[in-house]
């Protein structure tokens, strides 16, 4: 299994009621897309936020796309489009 540390920020942190959690992915499905799929299957607010609205993902503090691979120990951050400046 590929264990990653998942962080949530801003609206997603509030909607999901947590700022981080550890998650395990099968090694042959260790991508950002697979992780998002796993979260969507939780239904309710997870499905609403991760299917109905735009979000961004950073792996080890770099923004990436859904096809990015994940390795054990990666820090995966999921957050709404940024609104600084």
């Amino acid at each position, binding site marked *: 299994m590929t264990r990653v540390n998942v*962080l949530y920020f*801003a609206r997603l942190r509030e909607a999901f009621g947590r700022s981080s959690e550890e998650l395990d992915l099968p090694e042959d499905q260790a991508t950002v897309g697979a992780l998002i799929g796993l979260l969507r299957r939780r239904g309710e607010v997870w499905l609403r936020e991760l299917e109905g609205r735009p979000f961004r993902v950073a792996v080890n*503090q770099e923004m990436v796309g859904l096809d990015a691979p994940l390795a054990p120990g990666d820090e995966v951050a999921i*957050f*709404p*489009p940024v*609104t*600084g400046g």
Partner: protein
Amino acid sequence: MAVRVQEADFDVGGELAALRAGRRDIGAIASFVGLVRDLNDDARIEEMVLEHYPAMTRKALEDIVEEARRRWDILDVRVIHRVGRLAPGDQIVLVAVAAAHRREAFQACEFIMDWLKTQAPFWKKERTPEGSRWVDARSADEEAAARWQRK
């Protein structure tokens, strides 16, 4: 340092003075200050809270500055972004770019702001008389950043 993320306010005059201190090769400094407005999307803003992703924020800003240095012949850059609680009228962000000539300074300064708006992990939450709300990203900001995509 070129990039800072802090709760404290900043002194624009002091930052610009530091940028050119002891130098005589700078012909142009373009700068930008972003401020909290008391009105946004027709709602009165009582307070703003800026959340960020501490492990990523500085690196994201430094990457944007590096990209600006690759694209334009510029001499120095300062980026300061505040986090935490802010009130209407407060300063949020400073971007200042020093160059020999004005065109490069203006371009790099506007580029850094446009990319910061879509690439740096900050999120604004506004308190209004009707309650608190997370600010939605604006498509205009995506379009502004897309202007700088290399052909």
